[in-house]
């Protein structure tokens, strides 16, 4: 088993939380893990990404080679498209449809989604609204992670345990909200694949 994942978003959108949960789940499954993060200046509203590599064998490079990523998990659609050259021929792009517009020249969202739809394997879901309906709009990142779970080839319970480990000290309510967000994301992704 080997999964090379690019996490993409804007500073503050919670991609490091996604990374922490996948990382914890991977450690729970005794997988080898490398995860390169971006810290420092670019965290201030700029584009951020993380290279996350899981394998049942030792992982060499901290960076995923171009054209080899199995998956891009994007909390923001343009940020997902930014790394499309990293994706393997059969890789998945799983993205939120809600844009984060903090620049003047943000392109047309419809055009961005149109281009994403040309990829052979993609999932587009409205994570912001799904999270809002669940009563916690800050959990959009967990909805997107949930949408990636059908394709990660790992036991879902590992992720529920990881949410408990990471959010446990914030109380049972927060854990439940995040687990619900994972489940909702999962269901939407499955529904999306049936639709397309």
């Amino acid at each position, binding site marked *: 088993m080997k999964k090379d994942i690019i996490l993409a978003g804007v500073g503050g959108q919670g991609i490091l939380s996604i990374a922490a949960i996948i990382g914890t789940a991977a450690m729970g499954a005794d997988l080898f893990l490398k995860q390169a993060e971006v*810290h420092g200046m670019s965290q201030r509203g700029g584009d951020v990404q993380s290279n996350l590599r899981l394998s049942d064998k030792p992982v060499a490079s901290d*960076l995923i080679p171009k054209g080899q990523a199995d998956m891009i998990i994007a909390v923001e659609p343009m940020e997902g498209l*930014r790394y499309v050259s990293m994706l393997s021929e059969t890789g998945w792009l799983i993205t939120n449809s809600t844009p984060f517009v903090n*620049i003047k020249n943000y*392109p047309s969202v419809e055009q961005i989604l149109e281009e994403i739809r040309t990829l052979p394997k993609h999932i587009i879901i409205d994570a912001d609204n799904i999270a809002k309906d669940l009563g916690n709009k800050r959990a959009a990142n967990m909805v997107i992670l949930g949408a990636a779970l059908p394709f990660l080839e790992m036991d879902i319970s590992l992720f529920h345990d990881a949410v408990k480990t990471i959010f446990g000290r914030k109380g049972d309510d927060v854990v439940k909200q995040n687990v619900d967000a994972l489940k909702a994301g999962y269901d939407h992704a499955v529904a999306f694949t049936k639709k397309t």
Partner: protein
Amino acid sequence: MNKLPLLGDEAIAQGAIDAGISGIFAYPGTPSTEITEYVIRSKEAREGKIVASWTSNEKTAMEAAMGISYVGKRGMTCMKHVGLNVAADAFINSAITGANGGLVVVAADDPSMHSSQNEQDSRFFGNFALIPMLEPSNQQEAYDMVHYGYELSEKFEIPVLMRITTRLAHSRAGVSRREMRKQNELKLPKTLNQFILLPSNARRRYKMLLGTQEAFVKESENSAFNTYIDASDRKLGIIACGIAYNYLLENYQDQKPVNPVLKIGQYPLPRKLIEKLYNECDELLVLEDGYPLVEESLRGYMNLGKTIHGRLNGKIPREGELNPNIVAAALGIDNYTGRESSSLVVGRPPSLCKGCPHIYSYNALNEALSKWAKGRVFSDIGCYTLGALDPFEAINTCVDMGASITMAKGAADVGLVPAVAVIGDSTFTHSGMTGLLDAVISNSPVTVMILDNETTAMTGGQESNAHGRIEDICLGIGVDKDHIHVLNPIQKYHDVNMEIIKKELEYQGVSVIIPRRECLQTLATRIRQEKKKVKPAIQ
């Protein structure tokens, strides 16, 4: 097994705790910050009474770490690559004094300049100082090398430099710990003049340092961190330093490289192993992150030997960090390298947070300066450097810590009046104070704005040594109290603030204007922590 998922930085910190350090001093700087932060937060470090604190700058940190070594205990200091420039005086001389207790200096380089103003290679500093150097290829090695670094440092009574790069510093992987070593007892140097670098003594110490060089090479030749991996195709021999080794292996997946490989993790270079590779292979390829240090030394000025491929002959790009694709191209491996990038995607540069106090400082400054042509604002290093970008375009320089005040002084002294310096609170106590003294002594017509957000914001909100002290420091340095103003940088006071700046721009001497409001990020963190503290008291 029980591995901890640690960043490279955190692996170094845990390694230092487990190797029995008594203290760590540092000034925050990406990508080195998380080392000291980890020790400050560590329960084990607290229980072991390990002193862990932020200092005013990298030089004071380096010297404080030397103080730990002087008393026979193990000390660490860590900094970003350009921080080593600041600490260089102490660092180079620490090789002459030597160490008493183990002393490991960590320099975190930033090839590709993710968060820096250059991509200088700290290995040159290690060679310059003539001391042993360690360069880990992964998180586990980083952890193990700290243990070994202290052994090496105490064996040869010499400081050891550990060089990492951003990619390792900020990448996480599982790390296994070793048993914790006890801290050293307090024990002064055997000869009490060891650290006195009077010329007569310094000459003797320098001779000793030169005399130890061969032993350092031997140590490298026998080091477990320098390994020779033989293979049958000897048309090419590969030298892979530090993290470059991973990018090499990535291209062979589960197989061994087809060419002989010399993996380098310790310097000075292991001469015997290099000779073996050179003699047995037709050509060499050098893979190293940063500058072509190894490549240059193997070629020599005349470049008369075998062909050596690397950054100097264009096999590898001259600038920027390595990655698996660059190494694949150098090896002639033809992998699928992905789709075309999308033409729709535009850049998303970092920006000041919504409501950030700097926004209102720059709005007021820009308006106050509007009657003059642009180009007279000298700035510095911090979040406020983002004032260079749209929509502010408020600053014209950013060079090194503290350069705002001194460059403004020089420019003003020869005729650019008014000249403005914009510097943050933490940067001011790092390297701004001495420049302000220069300006006061020559009564230079400069307006210094110290943007006080009461923290070291850009590196994540570490305590600022300037906190609560700025007015007193300025008065002590000799700034006239009538020309020191504290402003509240919010929209409501825009006009008031703007008028004060305008008035001081006309003053033909040193003025200091201090817009003061807490950074929103630290404010949010503080409120969260205070809520947590209050909760148990209520229950």
